[in-house]
């Protein structure tokens, strides 16, 4: 089975506090161990949400006739 692991952000990751060389080396070694054990298929770090696009949402009013059928909710 495949499983997606999502690491939660914290103050440091959101502040874009840079990783230290030691941390990157430790992570690299650990990821190497996992990769050689056959997992994971992929892993990446995300830039802080300050670099994210504004969240994009579409509300029910702009929905076409073939949208998902859902009960109205907030």
């Amino acid at each position: 089975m495949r499983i997606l692991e999502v690491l939660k952000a914290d103050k440091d990751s959101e502040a874009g506090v840079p990783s230290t060389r030691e941390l990157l080396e430790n992570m690299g070694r650990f990821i190497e161990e996992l990769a050689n054990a056959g997992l994971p298929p992929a892993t990446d770090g995300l830039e802080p949400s300050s670099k994210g696009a504004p969240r994009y949402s579409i509300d029910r009013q702009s929905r076409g006739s073939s949208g998902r059928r859902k009960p109205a909710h907030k």
Partner: protein
Amino acid sequence: MRILGLLKADKDSEAGAPPSQELMEKMGTFIEEVTKAGVLLATDGLHPSSKGTRVKLSEGKVTVTDGPFAETKELVASYALFQVNTMAEAVEWTTRFLKVLGEGECELRPIFEASDFAPEVFSPEEAAREEANREQMQKNAAKQ
């Protein structure tokens, strides 16, 4: 640049309500288009958080908690990995995806690339190791 798109969960996705056949076909057609455009690298839907688990390490203590988790708005229902030139391109594709769904909210986050790190922090040796890791990861993925 690579960008990760995360579709937020909602009551339906958390209830494990399956999409209609019509919606599956529309999604399939759209995913085919984004893939052929060379933009979509990977995408998957996630089971509801009732099938999920959280692992936390804090102050030396490990806690493992099984879902479901309460804060639906903070949960992820699916992801998509994009290869684009600008964030605006990713926003455009995501907008079209949301119109296929009818409604929803996606968060788009740029992915750190090796070039984002100073060489004192991310040495050439580490960069070489990362490349080897990614090659191995691709082999792992191909074995699925």
